[in-house]
């Protein structure tokens, strides 16, 4: 793992659930609770995308949800990263041939990290968020370079 040097704040995460079956969503909450305790790293779920550094998306995205997800993504400040949790968000999963799915999440918004699994274990979710953290670190460095 690289060193975290530029990103000096706690990492705030916003969670948007699309057409997910809830399994990934409850594993995200489980990752925050005492057994896995992601909050000890300062990783926190927030109530608004405008406060978030990382967007967690679960589930294959139903058609009428796609524009809402795009709006959430656009509301997030830079630098930002998107993490897809679960198989159906990554590839469509078991819902691949549905008539109401706008496709896997990377067809709707740009995605940085994929965490496959049905559902992935909380350890895997934390690992995915750390990978996104490293990406944000890189983006932050670039932004700093531009300012100078």
């Amino acid at each position: 793992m690289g060193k975290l040097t530029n990103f000096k704040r706690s990492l705030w995460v916003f969670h948007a659930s699309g057409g997910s079956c809830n399994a990934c969503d409850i594993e995200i909450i489980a990752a925050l609770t005492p057994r896995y305790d992601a909050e000890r790293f300062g990783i926190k779920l927030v109530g608004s995308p405008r406060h978030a550094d990382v967007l967690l998306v679960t589930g294959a995205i139903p058609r009428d949800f796609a524009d809402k997800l795009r709006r959430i993504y656009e509301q997030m400040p830079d630098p930002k990263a998107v993490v897809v949790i679960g198989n159906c968000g990554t590839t469509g999963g078991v819902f691949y041939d549905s008539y109401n799915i706008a496709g896997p999440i990377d067809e709707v918004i740009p995605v940085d990290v994929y965490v496959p699994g049905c559902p992935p274990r909380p350890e895997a979710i934390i690992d995915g968020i750390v990978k996104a953290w490293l990406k944000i670190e890189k983006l932050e460095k670039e932004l700093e370079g531009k300012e100078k």
Partner: protein
Amino acid sequence: MAKTTYYIPVGPIHPALKEPIRVEAEVEGEKIVKVDVKRGFAHRGIEYMGMKRNAIQTLYLSERICGICSISHPYAFVIGSEKALGIEAPPRAQYIRTIIAELERIHSHILWLGVIAHEIGFDPLLFWTWKGREKVLDILEAITGNRINYAMYMIGGVRRDLKESHIKALRDMITYYWEFTEHMKEVFLSDPVYKARTRGVAQLSKEMALKLNVVGPTARAAGIRMDVRQDIPYDAYADMDVKAIVPQDIVGEARGDAYDITMVRLYEIEQSLDIIEFCLDNLPEGKILAIPNYVALLNKIKKTEGEAIGAHEAPRGEVIHYLKYDGTRDGPAVWKVIAPSYNNINSWAPLLLGAEVADIPVVVAYIDPCMCCNDRVAVVEDSSGRLLDYSYLHKKAVEKTRKLEKELGVRR
């Protein structure tokens, strides 16, 4: 005349909601005067896909209707299919199915207790209950191989057997949960602030409950004795005496509010422990699959005509699957799913009318809604037209709890 009501949309992406649904409320000051619920944001066309696939593939698809009830939907599906196809699961498989279903009820009810604690601002309680929940997830992982989405059931039995080591672990778990539930009862039921915050909130009278056709713990909290395990017993439930848990049996009267629901859910955890213990004591020996060869099973399905209804008491209420096999293909020709939250969400609008804005999270959470079983974001505007986001609503809910704490003179 100046405008007196304001419009508050909540959802489809909202922090109080873990899944997409939209509640639109008109408020006059703190009071809600008009409500509209819009659902359908999580529609994935599952029934349509299921009618194109074979029955075994559809069984795993049914598991993905909901990740929290990832046993309830397959349970109703296998019961319906077995009735339609004339297959009977071996007794050992029936008992194992009942054990897994009750394990799921324990994890789901503890999950709900954590969520309701979070909604009213007791976050340490959320973390504590979810810590206790990990134990049952460990057991489920040991038996089925996954924490959620277990892929355990099969038409005509189960796919994995219970080993001696699992039975020992289950007995340890039962001892652990008797103690943990006792502790939870003390924390939830005897805490004066919790009581003040939930008594009279989301109150559903017996008449209303019958009229709105609510099911599961929501109906039982209103005093209606209904439980699929009691009314039309199946599998191991037929060998024991399952009685619906209603508040009048516990404290003498049923009020149907959020406090009664908490009570019903806590006592149901104990009931589940009893059921698991009974199943372990009477676990029959023998096969676990009626037709162990899946190719033979699909062949039989292809040649059989029949239709049936499969019902199971999920943690949130009854889940019903209607299946029809037409004898021409190896999957269901017609598949219809009715999930409990579909009925229960109907109770939101009447309950929210006249309630305070700070009660929205409690009313929304109390039925333990499951949109993936059905459909989430809310926006609320205050008098200056400012948008109130979920964190603000949550803050209001917490503030009300703190105010009550002060009024009741409770120090923490």
